[in-house]
């Protein structure tokens, strides 16, 4: 296939992935690696390199918008980034040693996890948590708008910091190993384990994704995993798609779309695992 045609294909696929990813909150990165490897037979190492770099673009672009709304907790984000960046570097070093079949298999599992996280019913606790001792010492508590971005601000505390920190380290390893943002696991750590309000968890997770990915991107770049000809359309497509998605998000009805996109992700996960077992990836 000529490079021009290949580039146009990758650009349109990434545009669609970024658009759907930002509408549904699943992120575009998770589908781009299966699309490239299964659809266009790109080696999984190049696909992961391109995806990882693109994750930085979408995270930084979206974080800029969320930060203005005042939901992001910069202290919690910065503190947990110690765990995610360390994990990400370890993950990227592991990626150089792990066989591609094992990476593809793990990728399939991560896809299933993010689809499940996205579809499970969300139980928002009514009472804001009290900070425990470690959280109080770290001054992690914050406040966020309680009813819409213009509403009065409500304070919240933070719990189980060590468990959240450990889970964040694991999220970092997965991010560095698979070239994804691993937003689903970051949200799990903050929302379920540390008992933060959901909107604070998602926006702070988004804020952290770019820093986490930047930690392993250098490793990928210097190992020669980041192909400029491939990463260019992936990064530009996902970035444009997710910016478009964020604009439409306000008036779109995402419930059906979320189910459809999750179904696509499950199908891709099965294909990835089958490809790994069949020795094709």
């Amino acid at each position, binding site marked *: *296939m*000529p*490079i*021009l045609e*290949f*580039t146009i294909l990758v650009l349109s696929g990434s545009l669609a992935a970024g658009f759907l990813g930002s509408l549904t909150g699943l992120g575009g990165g998770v589908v781009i690696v299966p699309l490239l490897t299964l659809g266009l037979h*790109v*080696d999984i*190492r*190049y696909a992961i390199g391109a995806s990882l*770099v693109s994750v*930085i*673009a979408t*995270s*930084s*672009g979206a974080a*800029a*918008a969320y*930060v*203005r709304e*005042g939901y*992001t907790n*910069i*202290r919690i984000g*910065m*503190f947990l*980034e*110690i765990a995610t*960046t360390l994990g990400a*570097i370890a993950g*990227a*070093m592991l990626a150089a040693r792990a066989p591609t079949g094992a990476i593809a298999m793990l990728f399939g599992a991560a896809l299933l996890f993010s689809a499940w996280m996205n579809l499970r019913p969300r139980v928002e606790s009514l009472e804001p948590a009290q900070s425990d001792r470690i959280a109080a010492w*770290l*001054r992690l508590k*914050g*406040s966020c708008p309680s009813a819409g971005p213009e509403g009065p601000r409500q304070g919240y505390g933070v719990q189980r910091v060590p468990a959240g920190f450990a889970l964040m380290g694991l999220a970092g390893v997965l991010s560095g190993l698979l070239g994804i943002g691993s937003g689903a696991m970051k949200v799990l750590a903050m929302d379920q384990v540390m008992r933060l309000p959901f909107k604070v968890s998602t926006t702070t997770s988004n804020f952290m994704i*770019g*820093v986490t*990915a*930047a*930690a*392993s*991107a*250098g*490793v990928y*770049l*210097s*190992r*020669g*995993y*980041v*192909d*400029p*000809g491939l*990463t*260019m*359309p992936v*990064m*530009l497509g996902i*970035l444009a798609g997710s910016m478009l998605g964020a604009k439409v998000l306000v008036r779109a009805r995402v419930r059906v779309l979320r189910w459809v996109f999750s179904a696509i992700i499950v199908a891709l996960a099965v294909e990835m695992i089958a490809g790994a077992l069949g020795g094709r990836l």
Partner: protein
Amino acid sequence: MTFEESASSDRRLEAAVGGILRFGVIAAAAVVALGGAVYLVRHGAQAAALGRFRGEPEDFRTLPGIVRSASALSGRGIIQLGLLLLIATPVARVAFAAVGFALERDRLYAAVALVVLSFLLYGLAGA
């Protein structure tokens, strides 16, 4: 510093940081698009070959190599320069936060930001 004061200065810091992120991403995307145009004009008709992993040549994976190939106006070199700019954006965000916390005399979080920054620089050096 009371909790309310610290929360409002946190928000000012966050707004400034948001500006850095947006600028970095837009600048990086512009450089990548420029390099992409040069690359496609020169190589668009060749066959794409990414099916087997060979790893990038030194020109596209080390800082001196990327700077050299970008200043020779290689399309792929310019793309990689844009990607470096993109990777540097969150790093700048953390460095900026470290300075912000230090100015607020928040020693604990200035130290936290410096630890994150050192991990990032270690990763950027190729680990």
